């Protein structure tokens, strides 16, 4: 049995999802010869640390009742630097202006020779090249499937499963909130603002929906795909971005009468990175509804491959993190 010692940084929806999935998949991981021990769980107020492994069920219960997992006041970077472990699971909130605490955590992890699995887009959007180089210099694994499309496999699909194929372009819906809003506006013939309010009530849109509805979140995901799959060295500023705030129910209806839906489509190739609302034929593989994400990968040999799945949700995102964990330590 191989023991993987890890720390979980960020204990919001995704961090808790990871804890839950690790508990649920304990026996399965053991069947692969893996024992995963979490030596620290960190949230914005502090951390729980135990070099022998914390009790994840306890952490989840404490978070639910006390609102924090913190038992001591120690930062993520301090834990990475002082507690011996193999893997940093980084699920702190995305900050695309500074990279936030996530960037600090990742750099500290590589500097101390640890592997990193993350769902946090910010650092990858800002400092992809630097992070990759630091990871490489340290001989660390760095995986981030969960940053794009939640549970839907896309980075590992293009780089590993489709290995040998040149990827020509990727097009798709990479933001579930926008997809939900556009789908519901058409269904209800309701205005953008009405459906946005509904989405907030349901927790599908955040209180500040700017990242999602202005296309920023989609653009960040395209930046990650451009760097990780197309080998480019680009940042958010290289993306041509238009969001969905101007889309009207009348436009959706007129398009629908002519056999089209309007979707926020992200598109990336070596030549261009682009986010905008587009007309999609209703029988097109990218015309999925609700909060679903979808991506079509245009390949050199395999033709077009389309994947669709849940783009958000704690357990779904944790599933991508789990698959990265197994990819690193499973063999």
């Amino acid at each position: 049995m191989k023991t993987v010692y890890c720390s979980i940084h960020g204990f919001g929806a995704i961090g808790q999802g990871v804890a839950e999935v690790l508990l649920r998949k304990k026996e399965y991981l053991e069947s692969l010869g893996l024992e995963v021990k979490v030596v620290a769980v960190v949230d914005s107020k502090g951390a729980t640390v135990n070099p022998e492994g914390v009790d994840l069920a306890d952490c989840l219960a404490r978070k639910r009742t006390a609102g924090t997992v913190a038992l001591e006041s120690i930062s993520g970077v301090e834990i990475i630097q002082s507690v011996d472990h193999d893997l940093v699971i980084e699920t702190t909130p995305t900050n695309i202006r500074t990279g936030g605490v996530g960037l600090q955590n990742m750099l500290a992890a590589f500097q101390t020779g640890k592997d990193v699995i993350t769902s946090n887009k910010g650092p990858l959007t800002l400092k992809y090249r630097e992070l990759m180089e630091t990871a490489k210099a340290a001989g660390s694994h760095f995986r981030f499937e969960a940053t794009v499309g939640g549970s839907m496999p896309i980075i590992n699909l293009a780089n590993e499963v489709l290995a040998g194929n040149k990827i020509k372009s990727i097009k798709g819906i990479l933001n579930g909130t926008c997809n939900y809003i556009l789908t519901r506006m058409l269904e209800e013939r309701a205005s953008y603002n009405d459906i946005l309010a509904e989405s907030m009530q349901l927790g599908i849109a955040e209180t500040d929906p700017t990242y999602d509805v202005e296309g920023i979140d989609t653009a960040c995901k395209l930046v990650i795909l451009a760097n990780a799959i197309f080998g480019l060295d680009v940042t958010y500023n290289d993306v041509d971005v238009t969001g969905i705030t101007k889309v009207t129910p009348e436009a959706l209806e007129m398009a629908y009468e002519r056999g089209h839906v309007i979707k926020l489509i992200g598109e990336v190739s070596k030549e261009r990175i682009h986010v905008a609302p587009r007309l999609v034929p209703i029988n097109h593989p990218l015309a999925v509804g609700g909060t679903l994400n979808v991506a079509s990968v245009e390949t050199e040999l395999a033709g077009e491959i389309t994947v669709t799945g849940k783009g958000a949700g704690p357990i779904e995102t944790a599933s991508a993190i789990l698959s990265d964990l197994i990819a690193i330590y499973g063999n």
Partner: protein
Amino acid sequence: MRVSMDIELKDVPGQMLLALQPLSEYKANLITVVHHHQKRTPRKTVPVKLILETRPESIETIKAKLEENGIRVVRVGEHRFRESINVVLIGHVVHTGIQDTIDEIDRTGFAEVVDLSLSMPGINMLSSALMKIDAVGKEDLQKALAILKEVSTKKDLLMVLPIDIQA
């Protein structure tokens, strides 16, 4: 060349075959047939629109053969436009001059706005338009879209293009 042909068929069995025979005989390539079954003419015939590709010198012969078969040929015209797309425009589509937007496309000579649906839900609310643009060829269509994009930027309109078009 591509030709559109409006013909009228008598409402009895076997008429379509009589219409298609001369086309096959003179090796015209039939692109589309639109059969307007609901729209009877005052002569009780059924109007049918054909689009076909053929050598220019065959057109008159085909027309004569059709008439010989008792089929009335109402109109023959060159079908110039091969490319067609729908574009959605959202914003103050009307107040910023919809006619001017259409003129910019029509003025090119290689593209035309052929259909327009418009929705203006209220003053101070965004209007939406769905425009169908025909163009002579693919490149012309791209040029027309570039013009429309420039106009849209100037008028602060959101232009929604089909997914298979290079934006």
